[in-house]
């Protein structure tokens, strides 16, 4: 059914015979763990030869290597979900930056400034209605694509042995995507946003031990106020973009390094 696993060099036995200090053992274990997954050796070698060869070619994909193209093409849509979510993220970033020119996170006034700015965007701004629509839909599409991407990875066993690290990063990413969605959901400050925020505060208050601290940090207090909206805004437009963009880069970088795991 599957390829037989090749025998590995006995790195553990080698370490045992070397009589190492605890520091050295920890260091070597970490180094070996990372190297068997990310092939640091290869990249050191590549650095050595990079000076002589500048050759822009895509590495040969698994499908090419095992000549799976004829059996593989109808699975292709499942394998492009990651690209799809990245694209949706980029579209959301662009439309979000444009929306940011007109939105302001303030709860003063009646209706609140935040709400009336959304109203302004939707009714008076040229293309504003479409802009908000694009932002919202790209967010929805991103979440859906990320979820389907996770299912694809699960059912093709692509999370397996050298790729655990990327699976964990992926879990962090899907969670952060949902936090992105949640913070964005609160920004219009309409009824749904307000009461979803209320649930969020109650959820964080019921975390054992750290609850009040978390509520204070994320929502700026135990009831919803100006502080809440402002924190949601900063998380949505400042903190998360940095963190998520970096993580996506690492996530894709690791896929590049390790190659795509396709079933065979």
């Amino acid at each position, binding site marked *: 059914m599957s390829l037989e696993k090749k025998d590995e060099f006995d790195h553990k036995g080698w370490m045992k015979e070397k009589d190492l200090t605890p520091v050295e053992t920890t260091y070597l274990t970490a*180094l070996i763990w990372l190297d068997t997954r990310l092939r640091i050796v290869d990249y050191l070698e590549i650095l050595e030869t990079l000076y002589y060869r500048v050759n822009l070619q895509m590495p040969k994909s698994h499908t090419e290597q095992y000549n799976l193209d004829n059996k593989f093409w109808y699975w292709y849509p499942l394998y492009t979900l990651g690209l799809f979510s990245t*694209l949706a993220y980029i579209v959301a970033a662009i439309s979000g930056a444009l929306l940011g020119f007109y939105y302001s996170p303030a709860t003063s006034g009646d209706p609140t400034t935040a709400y009336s700015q959304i109203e302004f965007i939707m009714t008076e701004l040229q293309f504003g209605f479409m802009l*908000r629509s694009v932002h919202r839909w790209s967010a929805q599409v991103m979440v859906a694509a990320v979820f389907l991407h996770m299912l694809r990875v699960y059912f093709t066993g692509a999370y397996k042995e050298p790729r655990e690290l990327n*699976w964990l990063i992926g879990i962090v990413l899907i969670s952060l995507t949902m936090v992105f969605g949640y913070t964005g959901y609160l920004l219009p400050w*309409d009824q749904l946003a307000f009461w979803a925020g209320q649930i969020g505060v109650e959820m964080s208050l019921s975390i054992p031990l750290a609850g009040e601290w978390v509520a204070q940090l994320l929502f700026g207090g135990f009831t919803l106020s100006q502080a809440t909206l402002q924190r949601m805004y900063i998380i949505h437009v400042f903190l998360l973009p940095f963190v998520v963009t970096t993580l996506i880069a690492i996530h894709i970088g690791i896929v590049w390094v390790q190659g795509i795991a396709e079933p065979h």
Partner: protein
Amino acid sequence: MTDTNDKTPETDGGEEVRADGTGIVAPDDETPTWRERKERTTGLSRLTYEYFERARREDQDLRQESTYVERDVLGFPTWPHETIRNLSIASFFVGMILFLSATMPPHIGPPANPSSTPAIILPDWYLYWSFGLLKLTPINPELAILDGQKIMADRTYGVLANIVVVGAIAIVPFLNKGSARRPVEEPFWAAVGVGGVVFAFTISVLAVQNLVPIAVPLLFDLTFLLPVVAGFVTYAVLKTMREGYMYDLNRRYYRLRPPK
């Protein structure tokens, strides 16, 4: 041979060539190479060097054992093959997003009003599962030792359920190892996956229980029953498929080598 031997050697620039190992020329065979310098280091950098040497040798051995033959062309060129394909897929997807947003734009509800709680409070659809996990009150255990009191508040229990679900997904690669890739190869893990997907769906339905025309206790039971049933069916189907594969393989084997 017009040079005289007593003259000190010079570079093209006229500088004196130092032959004691501090210049650009190695004085003799005693001068350590870079490899030897690396070997002579101590401590962690020495260990790094030794491990990398071993890892390289391992790679080389694997490469020599492998039956894989390199082709003349190492891969598709980036331009135009990959670029054109990626651009077309990208434009198609972005077009899909624009189409959705042009045909189904979102609207905005009434402004926030802290003094009136709406009848139905819901997050976006993708958080229903988490919202549903907050409604697990009926299975929050009551301890006889504590006179039937609950060990934690219902909402604490809900938040912990979220952590348990995410944690369970996170440890999958550390439990399921090996080179099997297809669901048929591992019916159990495929069944777990299908059960999980169905559970994500049923727990989302539980979250919107106000909108579902099923009695809440029944809905609650279905939430936990359906994933198990789905997992069980998946397991049975995949096991059967695997039997089929094995039957084919065996038949082919005995056709080639008929029993005497």
